[in-house]
C-alpha cells in the first residue's frame, strides 16, 4: 500500500517537474540527482546501522567523516601515497567512532534516545572545534583519481567517483542485509534492535555487539566523508552538518529499514535535482530533503495517538 503511494507520488512529481522538457534533460538531472542522493543515503545508512544496534542516533557521523577526510587531505599534501591516505581517512573515522562507543556511550546506556542523540552532538562539536582549529578556513580541494575518468550515461558524463558512491550505497545496503540475516553477529544485532533489555537477559554480549556496530558505522562514516570531501566541498563545518540531510534520509526509513533509507535518500536527491527545472522552486531546491522527511514521518504517524508512555513512536 505504501509502495503504491510512493510510486504514484514519485511519478507525479517527476512528470510535473519535467513537463514539456526534453527527455534528455530530465535524464540528465535524474542521474545527477542519483549521485547526490546516494551521498544522503550513505550518511543515513551509517546512522541507521548504529541506531538499530545501539539506540544512538549519531549526530557526530558527519564530524567523524570530516576529521577523516581532512587527515587524508593533509597526508596527501605531505605527498603520502593516495591509497594510504584513503585508508588513513577510514582508520581515523573508525578510531573516533570506537572511542566514543567504548568510552562515552556506555555511560548513557540507560538514558532515553533523545538524550543519547544530544550527547553525540557534544562529540560532534568537539571534533568540529579541533578540526577547524587545526585546519584554518582556507579553500581546499580533495580529489580522487577516479574524478578524472568518466562514463557517459544518458548523455551526461558521470565520474567514476559518483558511480562508486552510488554503487557503494547499494552495496552497503545489500551487504548489511546479508550480514544481519546470515551471521551470528547479525542475528544478535537484530535481537538488540528488537529489545535491548530482553537481549541482555538472554545473554547476548551487548558490549561486543555494540562495539562492532560502532566500528561498522565508523567505517561507513569515514567512507562517506571521503565522498563528501571529493564531491561536495572540503570544509569541516559543511561536512559536519551534512548530517542534517542524512538524518532526513534516515528518517525516511524510520531509523530502521535500510532499504527505505536508500530509496528515501535517492528520491530526495532526484527530486532536489529535478526542482532545478522549476523556475519558481529552483532557489529553494535544497529544502527538498527536509520537506520529504517531515512528510514521511507524518505519513507513517497518521492515525496513531500518544497516550501511554513507552518507546518513542514512529
Amino acid at each position, binding site marked *: 500500500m505504501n509502495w503504491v503511494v510512493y510510486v504514484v507520488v514519485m511519478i507525479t512529481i517527476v512528470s510535473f517537474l519535467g513537463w514539456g522538457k526534453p527527455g534528455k534533460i530530465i535524464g540528465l538531472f535524474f542521474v545527477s540527482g542519483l549521485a547526490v542522493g546516494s551521498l544522503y543515503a550513505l550518511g543515513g545508512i551509517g546512522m541507521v546501522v548504529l541506531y538499530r544496534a545501539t539506540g544512538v542516533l549519531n549526530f557526530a557521523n558527519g564530524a567523524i567523516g570530516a576529521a577523516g577526510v581532512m587527515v587524508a587531505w593533509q597526508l596527501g599534501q605531505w605527498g603520502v601515497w593516495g591509497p594510504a591516505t584513503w585508508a588513513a581517512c577510514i582508520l581515523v573515522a573508525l578510531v573516533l567512532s570506537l572511542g566514543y562507543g567504548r568510552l562515552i556511550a556506555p555511560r548513557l546506556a540507560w538514558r532515553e534516545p533523545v538524550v543519547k542523540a*544530544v550527547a553525540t552532538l557534544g562529540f560532534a*562539536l*568537539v571534533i568540529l572545534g579541533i578540526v577547524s582549529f587545526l585546519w584554518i578556513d582556507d579553500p581546499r580541494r580533495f580529489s580522487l583519481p577516479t574524478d578524472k575518468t568518466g562514463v557517459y550515461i544518458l548523455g551526461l558524463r558521470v565520474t567514476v567517483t559518483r558511480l562508486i558512491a552510488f554503487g557503494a550505497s547499494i552495496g552497503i545496503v545489500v551487504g548489511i542485509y546479508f550480514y544481519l540475516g546470515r551471521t551470528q553477529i547479525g542475528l544478535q544485532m537484530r535481537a538488540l534492535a528488537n529489545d535491548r533489555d530482553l537481549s541482555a537477559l538472554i545473554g547476548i554480549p551487548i558490549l561486543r555487539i555494540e562495539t562492532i556496530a560502532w566500528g561498522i558505522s565508523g567505517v561507513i562514516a569515514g567512507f562517506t566523508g571521503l565522498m563528501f570531501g571529493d564531491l561536495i566541498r572540503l570544509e569541516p563545518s559543511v561536512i559536519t552538518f551534512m548530517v542534517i540531510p542524512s538524518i532526513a534520509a534516515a528518517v525516511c526509513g524510520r*531509523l530502521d529499514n535500510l532499504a527505505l533509507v536508500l530509496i528515501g535518500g535517492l528520491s530526495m536527491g532526484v527530486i532536489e535535482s529535478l526542482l532545478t527545472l522549476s523556475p519558481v522552486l529552483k532557489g529553494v531546491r535544497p529544502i527538498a530533503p527536509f520537506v520529504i522527511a517531515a512528510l514521511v*514521518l507524518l505519513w507513517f*504517524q497518521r492515525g496513531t495517538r500518544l497516550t501511554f508512555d513507552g518507546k518513542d*513512536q514512529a
Partner: protein
Amino acid sequence: MKNDLFHITPSGRAGLLFALFAFLVVPSVAGSQWLNIFTSTAIFTLAVAGVAFMYARLGMVSLTQVGLMGVGGWITLRLNHWLDLPFEVSLIASGLTTVVFGWLLALPALRLRGLYLALVTLMAAGGFEIVFATFQFPNGGAGFWGVQTGTGEDFSRPVIAQSDAAYLRFTIVVATLGFLIIELHRRLAPGRAWALIRRSEAAAMSAGVNVTLYKTWAFGISGLMGGLAGALLAGSLGLLDGGTFRASESVMIFALAVVGGANFWLGAVIAASLFRILPALLNNWGLDADLSFVIFGAGLLHAVITAPDGIAGQVMDLSGKLFARVTGAAGREGGTRSAGDGVGSNALSRVLSNFTLTLLQIPVQLSHAVMGSKMQASGLDAPIEVRDVTVRFGGVVALNKVDATFTKPISGIIGPNGAGKTTLMNVISGFVMNTQGAVHADGVTLTNLMPPHRRGHWGLRRSFQKEEIADDLTVGENVLAQVDALPLSRGRKQQEVARALDFVGMTDRVGKAGKDLNSFERRLTDIAKCLVGHPKIIMFDEPAGGMSVEETAILGGLILKIHDYCGAKTLVIDHDVDLISRVCEETLVLDFGERIAFGRTADVLADPKVRAAYLGIEEPAA
C-alpha cells in the same frame, strides 16, 4: 495561592538583581564593541529561554529556535521597510506571528515525541535555513521579499533606544519580561498541566488536561521568545543575513541550553554567554574562535553525563549551600516566605496579580469553550452500565461482549493477568476504542468518542497501576492540577483540594515535592486527585500493588469512605482478594476477555468457575 504567584524565590531575586545590574551598570561601562556583544547575548538569552523551558518543563526538544528567530527578524524588517511602523509595534507583531509559527510546529508534536519530535523540528530548521539563504531579508527593496542589492535602507530603532547603550537596556527589559512570562505560566494552570504531561500524557488526560491545547500553547510561548529575540536582533543590527539562521545554530542553541542548565534563568544566561561572549573573548586573546566548539562540546558531554541541571544547577547548589551555612538552614525558609507575602499584599501587586491571572486564564477559558458541556452536580446515583463491550487488537480479542451493570457504591473487577481488566478500564476512560458496545452512566454514553480529558471534566477519575504524580509539583499542586480545567472559582478549588488532602491524611505534606514522596504517599496523593471536582466515577487500577499489609488496610478504609465523601461510584481492580472482599459489594470476574461471573462479591468468590480460573483450584470432575 495569590501570594505564591508573586512570591520571589532566592533564585528569582538573584535573577532580578542580575537584570537590574545588567540594566544600570553594564551599558555605561562597556565599550562599543562589547555593547553589541552584550546586546546579542541578551537577545540569545531570550531565545534560549524559549527552548530551555520546553525541555525542562515538557521534556520536548525543539531544534527550530534560531529558525523562529529568523521569522521574527524577517517580519520586523518587512514591517519596518513597508509601513514604517514604530519598532515596538513591529516587535509585538513579529512576536505574535512567531507564536502562530510555533503552533504550526506543534502539529507534529501531537503525534510524535522524543527523538522523532526532535527530528521533525530539525527538518523545519533545515527548511527555514534554506528559505532565508535563498530569499534573504528585506532591506528596503520592492516586492514581497523586499530585497535590493547594494546598501539597504535605514532601519529605525525604538524612539527611546536610539543609541547602542539604550538599545542594550531596551533588550534587557524585553528579555526580563520574557522570563517573567515563562515563570508566570509555570506557577499557574499551564505549568501544572505541563508537569503532568511530562510525567505521562495518559495521566494528564485523565486528570482533565487538554494535552493538545497545552502542548500547542507551550510551542507558542517558545515561538514568542524566538520571535521577540529575532526582532530585537534585527533592531540591533539593522539588517540580517541568512547565514545567522542556520539549522546548525538552532542545534547549537539547544545544546548550550542543556549545558547552561534548562531549569534555571541562570542557565539561559550562561548558554547565551557561551554562545556570544566566549568566541569574542577567544578572539580578543588571539585564539581561534573555533576552539569554543570544543568547549561547547565537552560542556555538553559533561552536562548530559554527570550534571543534568547543567552549570546553573551546580552554581545554584553551591550558592544554596553557602547561603545555608551563612544564615542557618531553618531561618532561610521562613525569611523568604514572609518576603514573598509582603510583595503579594500591596495594592499594586493585587491589581497586577488579577490582570495576569485574567490573561493566563486564556488557555483555561479556551479549554472550557472546547469542553462545551456544563459541570453537573456531584456524585452518581444511576448505575454504570457496561453493554456488550468488545475490544479487538488486530486478531486478539481483548474483551468479548462484556456486559455488567454496576449499581453498588463500590464494585470490584478481578481476573487473572491478561484477563482484560485494565483494558475495560481503558475503554471507560477513553484510551482504548471499543469495536462494539457502549458504556453508559447518568444518561451519558461515555464511549461516544468523548476524548479522555472531557471524560475527566464530566466526572470520571482514575488512577494507574503506577502512581502518576508529577515530580516537580508539590502535593497540593498535583491535586490542584486535576481541577484546573473545571469552571470553579479559585477559592472553591483551593477548598476542594484542602478537603481531599485532609481526607487522605496528607494535609501536613501539602508543600512536599512529588519527587520527595514515598510510594504510599504518592498513592494517597493519587487518591486525593480522584476526589476533587465533583467526581462521578472513580476507578483504581491495582491501588494496593506494592503496598504493605498496613498500607493496604488504610487504603481499604479510605475507599470504603469515598461514597459518603462525594457520592461517587468506585470501581477497583486488584489482585488482593482480601481487599476486594472487604471493600466491594459486587464484583465482575473476567478471564480471557470474557465475563465469567458477576454478582455479590461473596457469591462470586465462591463460584467454582471463578475459583478454577482465578484462584487456581481445579474444578472437581463432573
